[in-house]
């Protein structure tokens, strides 16, 4: 009885699938024939698009952004910023969020957007090298590839939109540590995962900056890894405090780490004794920033992830429209004058051999402006 019913059902679904398959296929063929429309690309291929008659950043293409992972407001702001500009310029934006912050999941996302026939991919990489083969394949199919926030290696991108120069961040953070510590004393770094590309680059940069005699009285007691997880970061902060009770400054160049460290310092009542700085989201850190001894963090830095997304969007369109090619030395001006120097940017050589565009200097969040910014992001 049941078997009969099942076989009937099977037959029905089979015929249904055949019907759908038949009706679906021609239509899909029809659309795929018409979709590869990249007229805008060839229109303004003559380089410097400033003088062009129409808006060089107008587009009707499809642009994909692949963020590091789902469930993180920073990533969300980044993709929001990207989408905002793409849609304002007339394009279609595709956002892909990997389930977890791994290279494997991002490769799946790359595959998804390549199959959709996008014109450009902007990616915030979870791993510098692991995406190279996948992105190269995308580039072979004529898709423009750029990275933002966290770079892929020089072979697998046309240009990298850097939130702030690595060297610049390292210098800024070292100066902050020097200032907060009063010029001397022990300090520690609380980083994200030990494999985090950005954090490792910044930490290496800081170690380089430290060679200057100005910082000779500062003593780095160690780098601790909180894996960008709250509980682990709390444990690591506690470990810093027990390893060296005289530690004066903790520098956490990661949004989760700095929150965890701030929380520990406040709970332990050490806000007057141990100070904190680093990179953090203003909305998450609003409670902990203040000039007095009741707050652990006098000031910290970050860039605007929305603007980072905005700039990345203009750069993507620029690559597709041929306004820029991603070579070092090129200059371009985006319509949004709040970005960079009245909207103008220069593409520079990056330390890894590729090219990069730097969004701007890291922005300091102080007790004075934190209330204003914590409402924004």
């Amino acid at each position, binding site marked *: 009885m049941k078997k009969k019913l099942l076989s009937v059902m099977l037959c029905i679904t089979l015929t249904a699938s055949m019907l759908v398959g038949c009706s679906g296929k021609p239509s899909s063929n029809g659309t795929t024939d018409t979709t590869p429309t990249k007229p805008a690309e060839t229109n303004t291929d003559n380089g410097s698009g400033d003088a062009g008659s129409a808006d060089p950043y107008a587009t009707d293409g499809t642009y994909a952004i692949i963020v590091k992972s*789902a*469930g993180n407001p920073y990533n969300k702001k980044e993709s929001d910023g990207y989408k905002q500009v793409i849609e304002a310029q007339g394009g279609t934006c595709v956002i892909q969020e990997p389930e977890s912050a791994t290279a494997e999941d991002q490769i799946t996302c790359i595959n998804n957007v390549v199959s959709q026939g996008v014109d450009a991919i902007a990616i915030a990489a979870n791993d510098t090298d692991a995406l190279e083969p996948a992105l190269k394949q995308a580039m072979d199919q004529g898709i423009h590839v750029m990275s933002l926030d966290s770079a892929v290696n020089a072979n697998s991108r046309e240009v990298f939109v850097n939130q702030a120069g690595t060297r610049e961040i390292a210098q800024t953070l070292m100066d902050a540590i020097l200032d907060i510590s009063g010029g001397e004393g022990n300090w520690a770094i609380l980083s994200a995962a*030990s494999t985090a590309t950005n954090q490792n680059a910044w930490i290496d940069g800081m170690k380089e900056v430290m060679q200057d005699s100005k910082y000779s009285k500062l003593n780095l007691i160690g780098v601790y890894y909180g894996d960008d997880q709250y509980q682990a970061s*709390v*444990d690591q902060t*506690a470990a810093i405090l027990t*390893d060296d009770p005289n530690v004066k400054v903790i520098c956490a160049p990661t949004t989760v780490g700095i929150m*965890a460290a701030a929380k520990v310092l406040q709970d332990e009542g050490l806000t007057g004794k141990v100070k904190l700085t680093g990179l953090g989201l203003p909305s998450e850190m*609003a*409670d902990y920033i203040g000039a007095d001894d009741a707050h652990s963090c006098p000031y910290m830095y970050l860039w605007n992830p929305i603007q980072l997304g905005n700039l990345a969007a203009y750069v993507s369109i620029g690559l597709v429209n041929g306004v820029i090619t991603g070579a070092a030395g090129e200059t371009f001006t985006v319509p949004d004058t709040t970005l960079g120097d009245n909207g103008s940017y220069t593409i520079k050589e990056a330390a890894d051999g590729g090219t990069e565009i730097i969004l701007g200097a890291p922005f300091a969040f102080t007790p004075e402006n934190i209330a204003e910014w914590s409402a924004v992001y």
Partner: protein
Amino acid sequence: MEKKSLWKTITGSREASLVIVLIILCVFIASRNSAFLTPGSIEGLFKNYAVNFVLTCGMMLVLIIGGIDISIGSTLAFSGMTASLVLRDFPETSVPVAFLISIAVGTVCGLLIGAVVAYAKVPPIICTLGAMSVYRGLAYLIAKNEWVSASEFSKAYKAFAQSRYLGFGIINNLVVIVIILIVVFYIVMKWTPIGRKVYAVGSNAEAALVSGIKVTKVKLACYTILGALAGLSGAMFTSLYASSQGNMGEGIEMDVIAACVVGGVSLNGGRGSVIGVFLGTLIISIIGKGLPMIGVSQFWQKAIKGLIILLAVIINVLVQRQMDKAALKRREI
């Protein structure tokens, strides 16, 4: 040979071997870092791992009935996130209400799992594997990929995990919750018919059924209790860290199961004690907190943790064998 004689000296119980492991660990860490065994550090340990203690109590129940639940991390995140969002959008929500919301969400999550496992007879690992992604996805979805940050929580909620008003000014609130739970679980599991029913279902479900125990109801209850405790943990977690993120509690299930197993709970069901579980959790927490304190390189900690877990369960087996042998000998005499 020497080893064997050493095992023989541990004749009391498996808990005794855990205490010895614990003492060795503590002495070793304390000898390297004198700050480890200070009252402040110990309170910090219990406070930061309060969530693990709460979860292991529930996990013990589920393991004793021969089940398993790997979705607790996701349940924690989902319920904690729900409570946090309520706190964010209705700042006047009081602390007990927030906790109750979280517990309620967790209870429903656990009830669903229990129903699927007990009535639809889906193997628990599969059901909770599915539930793990469902609840995690829901945690992200209700939060719309945002976090709830410290400034969005009410002052009272943030202060709860840092104050001692439940513990008469001596013991931290979270630690008080842990103590109450452990005492209740100890009494229930040891001296009440409910506890005996749980063990009966785990040792031999068919025999339990024949002897009139409603096996499906016991199973349902165990998963629901674990869900409720995961909900409680969600509130404790967000209160402790004054932050709520969709990925919180990721991977905590493995720590919790490891703690139970180290504490002598058998994954085959029917065996496990509250004291053992308590000691197991303590060992896992001490590894987590202690290794960074004695300057073990970050990159070695995972390997050492894995090794300790393996050794602990193997020692457990060896002790059990010794105990069985001794028992057999006594019987022969």
